[in-house]
């Protein structure tokens, strides 16, 4: 099991209070004034050279936001956020318009290097040893749309994608270059009035990714975006829109790391997915925002709205997430199963340690006939953290033949943490079949001793047991991501026992 060995090695090298990715890059930045007003919204829109319709859309969201109140139903507890004490826009100052990777600020490239992200066209990953029985993935390709702070600074593999007709670009560019597509789909899955954080995002989003896969096209590579917060006190408001047209397929990877900070950082992203007839989107996330220090100070507040709309018949949306970071996580990647025979999946690993608070889960809204959904959630709580699964499965009156299977498993490490499961189930027609299973377990002393008697250290033993616990979900991730996720899991749980 080389991956686990390597993980353990890495865990050993890391100091408890030293967040691995907690370095700061020295680059000049271009900020909007602190605070939120119509002027801020106009500033952002102007910075992006946006057309009038986009500005109007933002302003409408902003006005709506003013009438809303912050939700308090989640099982998370944090000091009140002063929305006037936050910067809403920061961009690395470009010297000129960038046309190739070589023109990127070397400082930024160095940052990516430290993160081990293959930004240059070395993205054809080789020498990754698949686990026994795992998928063989030679010559897998990944296209990276690197988001540095709020502006996308580089996009690779454009040529090959272009040949396939796939549009993969920063959403700010898409607004200018493909306004018809953006206007047709933006806000149709997560409306500007959806919820407090999504509405805020609609008003001030800075950038994010846009993907359009034309009918019948199978995207020739995995698409990937790495996010990174790099500006002190900067709210991070990403906006992602992915459209899979009829009969198409795309797999999208998202990963995050953030530098160590003492102040809390607000993050409110919105992701919208649309699949038309017979199309499929697979969306995978490894989230590793700064979780706060060993006393629970600092850390990212992560309020995310992710939703997919299976708009067409036989379409499919699959969410896979590995959540290890953030001080506060408020996140429910959901599927609206509108098309007949459409299906939605949610595979999740949510790990909390230290003083982290996670309230995460999914919503499967069955609207079409014979729709199916599957939820596999693995929550791991360690330290003094609180880990809540909150999920909704509902079948509309007309959603005959709806089927859902839900399995929520929680693993507790130590006796100062908590795991909670809050499932909501609503069936409005009698032909729906919903199954729900839930378990809560602890890593027992006997299991640990067994492993240790065989020569493993305490940390190796915990890593092994946890990796076994989350295996069903890890298998859903693309190979490279699975390796990365496995490392993250062990790093996150470092020092959780003994």
């Amino acid at each position, binding site marked *: *099991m*080389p991956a*686990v*060995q390597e993980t353990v090695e890495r865990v050993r090298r890391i100091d408890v209070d030293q967040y691995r990715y907690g370095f700061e890059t020295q680059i000049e930045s271009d900020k909007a004034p602190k605070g939120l007003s119509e002027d801020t919204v106009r500033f952002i829109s102007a910075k992006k050279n946006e057309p009038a319709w986009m500005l109007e859309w933002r302003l409408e969201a902003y006005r709506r936001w003013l009438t809303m109140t912050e939700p308090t139903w989640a099982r998370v507890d944090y000091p009140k956020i002063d929305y006037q004490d936050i910067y809403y826009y920061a961009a690395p100052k470009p010297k000129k318009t960038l046309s190739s990777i070589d023109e990127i600020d070397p400082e930024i490239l160095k940052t990516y290097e430290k993160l081990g992200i293959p930004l240059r066209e070395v993205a054809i990953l080789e020498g990754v*040893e698949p*686990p*026994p*029985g795992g998928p063989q993935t030679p010559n897998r390709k990944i296209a990276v749309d690197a988001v540095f702070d709020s502006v996308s600074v580089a996009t690779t593999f454009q040529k090959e994608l272009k040949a396939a007709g796939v549009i993969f670009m920063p959403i700010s560019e898409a607004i200018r270059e493909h306004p018809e597509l953006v206007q047709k789909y933006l806000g149709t899955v997560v409306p500007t009035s959806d919820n407090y954080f999504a509405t805020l995002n609609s008003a001030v989003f800075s950038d994010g990714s846009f993907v359009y896969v034309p009918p019948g096209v199978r995207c020739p590579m995995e698409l990937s975006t790495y996010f990174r917060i790099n500006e002190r006190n900067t709210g991070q408001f990403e906006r992602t829109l992915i459209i899979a047209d009829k009969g198409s397929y795309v797999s999208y990877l998202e990963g995050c790391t953030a530098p160590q900070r003492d102040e809390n950082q607000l993050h409110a992203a919105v992701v919208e997915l649309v699949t038309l007839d017979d199309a499929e989107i697979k969306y995978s996330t490894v989230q590793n925002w700064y979780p706060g220090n060993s006393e629970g100070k600092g850390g990212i507040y992560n309020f995310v709205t992710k939703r997919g709309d299976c708009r067409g018949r036989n379409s499919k949306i699959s969410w896979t997430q590995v959540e290890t970071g953030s001080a506060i996580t408020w996140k429910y990647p959901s599927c609206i199963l509108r098309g007949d025979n459409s299906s939605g999946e949610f595979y999740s690993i949510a790990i909390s340690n230290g003083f982290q608070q996670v309230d995460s889960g999914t919503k499967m809204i069955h609207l079409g006939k014979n729709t199916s959904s599957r939820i596999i959630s693995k929550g791991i709580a360690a330290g003094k953290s609180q880990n809540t699964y909150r999920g909704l499965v509902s079948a509309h009156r007309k959603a005959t033949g709806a089927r859902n299977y839900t399995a929520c498993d929680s693993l507790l490490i130590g006796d100062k943490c908590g795991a909670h499961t809050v499932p909501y189930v609503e069936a409005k027609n009698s032909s729906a079949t919903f199954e729900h299973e839930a378990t809560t377990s602890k890593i*027992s*002393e*006997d*299991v640990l*001793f*067994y*492993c*240790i*008697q*065989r*020569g*493993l*250290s305490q940390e*190796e033993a915990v890593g*092994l*047991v946890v*990796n*076994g*616990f*989350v*295996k*069903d979900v890890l298998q859903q991730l693309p190979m490279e991501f699975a390796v990365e996720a496995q490392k993250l899991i062990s790093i996150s749980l470092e020092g959780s026992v003994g």
Partner: protein
Amino acid sequence: MRALRMMLRKNQMSLLEVKDLKVRVEEREILHGLSLTVNPGQVHAIMGPNGSGKSTLSHVIAGKPGYEVTGGQILFKGEDLLEMAPNERAAKGVFLAFQYPVEIPGVTTWNFLHAALNAQRKARGEDEISSPAFLKKVREVAKSLNIPQDMLKRGVNVGFSGGEKKRNEILQMALFEPAVCILDEMDSGLDIDALRIAADGVNALRSPERAMVVITHYQRLLNYIVPDVVHVMSKGRVVKSGGKELALELEESGYAQFEDAA
């Protein structure tokens, strides 16, 4: 006793030496000064009624948390075993075959064994063994013990029968090549056929360099794994030691005769 003393030739360094061991669990003394000397190549049987401290002895040798050693010492190849962490003891060659092996869902037996073997090798300053080399090795070992290959692909002990669990312990024993094997109630939960298969596995691993300590209630197991020395434990002490015939004697007369001796 003379024969026994000859068997324990004093001029040769013993593999495992337990000297006047006193152990407490939550304020209650379980072992009251137990001594035991095991030499390479020997098989020792430890017999005794429930609560006599047999399993406590095996746990303390392996280093299970929750036991307080209040007196005496345990030497392994002359080194102080009690000073070593449990995984360090494993790397040095102390193996405990568990009475109730645990299940580890989602972790294949193959992966588990590989991780454990490499951890031991690393602790000894040896090179780690690569996946292909390990696969070859573990297949050979499994084959020599008549263990089906598909067991390696299943989760560690998950859904294993009692016999399969014990065979998995023996597989590990064969793979790690320990110097001392402690078999804790290996016969519990096994029918006679499974018992015979497990015992065959153990016998295959007997060697002049290796010692085994077989803990059991019943003489039955010792028909298959024939010991060189038999010890009777009662109330936290070894009350009698002898050759293999002692086990037969016990089978006839029971443990009651030793209750007073303790």
